């Protein structure tokens, strides 16, 4: 049994590595994706271009605007001279936010009344807008607090320097809240899924298409030997990709890896079983390489979208959340992020690993049942 599997594996490796495009897909694409996610994709919101329109042109208005400008989150880029001009800047996309203080802003404040600060946000990108609003609330609250303190001090004739509750935040696991730390472990999950899925789904269907499948089916090879011969090489390639991405992520992007590497590899093996199984299954139901390619993407895109890679699962409608339970990517993301950032071990991650093991064996079993040497 061993000899046939070894021959199959050697053959697959020769074929994959003789094709320069395949080599690029396996070694260059993962690193490229990693660079994109490491450098370009960032959900951190900083330097929001902001316009300030202060109708009264007051000192206090300038003070408030300066507080926005001095924070890392906002860049004051324009000082429109009318409300309409501020609106136009938003329309054109020159600024993402406009702060508007109407006539009497300063007077109201000085008189101890409530002054209104209008904030107009470009809400087309709802995620960013939400975060910007949070920062605005923070800056405004600080300012408000100071004004209150000053008023209290004036009223009582003393200075009040103490706040009632002081907020001290600590972000655990990703101290500087860098989105790269969150995404790079995710890229491992995504790339490994994509590459093994593609290679495996093509592997069988290509042989069907060019006619070599029939020749193999006329030999005494057993279906199990055939399946192992078709999955082991791509499993190995998947592992190599995990290692490449991990090395680049840790040494180039300085993503911390706090958990056990051994556990990471073990979980990767479980995860690869699901990817290889799905790939094999696609291969058995597809008649042509195009069909296999299409099916791969029909599986892959929803799998990424519904995995928590970019959008939190908790925000999804409940029926969609149920759907994510059959998504292997979902579990593996929890595992890689857990191992990389939190440094947690199997004692916490075992439910996810068990889920992957069950799914992997199931889909591999279903797929292998579909590979028969005699067609009926």
């Amino acid at each position, binding site marked *: 049994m061993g*000899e*046939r599997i*070894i*021959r*199959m594996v*050697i*053959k697959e490796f*020769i*074929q994959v590595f*003789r*094709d320069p495009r395949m080599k690029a897909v396996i070694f260059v694409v993962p690193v490229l994706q990693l660079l994109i996610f490491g450098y370009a994709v960032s959900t951190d919101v900083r330097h929001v271009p902001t316009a300030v329109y202060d109708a009264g042109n007051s000192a206090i208005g300038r003070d408030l605007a300066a507080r926005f400008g001095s924070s890392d989150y906002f860049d004051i880029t324009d000082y429109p001279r009318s409300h309409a001009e501020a609106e136009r800047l938003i329309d054109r996309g020159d600024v993402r936010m406009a702060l508007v203080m109407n006539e009497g802003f300063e007077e109201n404040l000085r008189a101890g009344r409530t002054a209104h600060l209008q904030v107009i946000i470009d809400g087309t990108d709802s995620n960013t807008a939400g975060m910007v609003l949070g920062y605005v609330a923070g800056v405004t609250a600080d300012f408000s607090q100071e004004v209150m303190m000053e008023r209290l001090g004036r009223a009582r004739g003393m200075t009040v320097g103490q706040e009632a509750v002081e907020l001290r935040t600590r972000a655990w696991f990703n101290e500087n809240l860098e989105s790269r730390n969150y995404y790079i472990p995710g890229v491992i999950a995504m790339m490994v899924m994509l590459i093994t899925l593609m290679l495996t789904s093509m592997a069988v269907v290509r042989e069907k298409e*060019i*006619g*070599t499948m*029939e*020749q*193999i*089916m*006329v*030999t*005494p*090879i*057993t279906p199990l030997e055939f399946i192992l011969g078709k999955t082991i090489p791509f499993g190995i390639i998947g592992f190599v990709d995990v290692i490449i991405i991990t090395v680049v992520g840790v040494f180039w992007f300085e993503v911390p890896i706090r958990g056990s590497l051994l556990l990471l590899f073990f979980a990767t093996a479980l995860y690869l079983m699901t990817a290889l199984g799905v790939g094999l299954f696609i291969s058995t139901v597809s008649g042509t390489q195009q069909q296999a390619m299409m099916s791969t993407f029909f599986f892959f895109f929803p799998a990424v979208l519904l995995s928590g890679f970019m959008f939190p699962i908790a925000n999804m409608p409940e029926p969609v959340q149920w759907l994510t339970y059959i998504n292997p990517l979902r579990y593996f993301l929890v595992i890689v992020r857990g191992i990389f950032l939190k440094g947690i071990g199997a004692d916490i991650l075992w439910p996810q690993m068990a889920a992957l093991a069950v799914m992997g064996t199931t889909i591999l079993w279903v797929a292998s049942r579909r590979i028969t*040497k*005699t*067609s*009926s």
Partner: protein
Amino acid sequence: MDKEQGKTAVSVENLERRFGDFVAVDRISFSVASGEIFGFLGPNGAGKSTTIRMLCGILAPTGGTGTVAGFDIRSQPEFIKTRIGYMSQKFSLYEDLTVEENINFYSGIYRIPANRKRERKEWVIEMADLTEHRSSLTGVLASGWKQRLALGCAVLHEPPVIFLDEPTSGVDPVSRRRFWDLIYELSGSGVTVFVTTHYMDEAEYCDRLGLIYRGELIASGAPEKLKTELMREDVLEVHCDKPHEAMELIAAMPGVKEAALFGRGLHVVTDKGEQVLRDLQATLPAKGFAVERIEPVAASLEDVFVSLVENRDREEEPQREVRR
């Protein structure tokens, strides 16, 4: 392999394969003796490949029984696979592997004993005349070489029975001839060769033939027997100028069943040979054709095949009308 001699290598009874309503192979029965070259002759779509695929255990029959190399085609297809070699219509080795890599692959899949691997590989390379191309990618080889390499890989494990499905389609005549020399060589060493073809000249090389048409086996026997016993009609060979125009004229003459171009002349099939011969001798010059000669000839395999097929069509015509 000698122990197989005198036995039956392939035998099928009422073998049938349906695809939905379509009957690809319609209850055919035949047998092939060990060491024989059995030719399966028929037009495209007649059911040749379907039959071969059932015999090789990659397509399950929907009816009938059969054995190949002593194993049942329904219940023991995997045993059959250890005892046969198969070469499909389409070249089906890996074009992105070299000649040697392809041989190594199949030699591993067939689990050829380690001490024989080298010897078998060299045998294939020499047989296929690929010594200079052993490290070439298979995809760049000319079709004659590909064909011989495919044959070599199919017989690496020295199977007693080999199935060749239109092995020479798309190969130049010289390579075809060489390929048949190899088939004779294998047959000489006791291998049973089951070969499908639609080349009539190749059919002549076979020990025995089965003629398949629309899924039915319409005749079988040695080529000589088919030509002498199964041809009910006479064949006249006509050599004249403008054979194309003459063909139309002749086909319309009374008593003529069929007129077809054959080589540089025409073959005229008729029930009444002598009368038609006289008619032709009178009519053709009268219509302005310069007649070189007209003579009765022995039927070629092609004549036999065409005649059998046409008789079949005539017999079936009324039935098919009813079926509609």
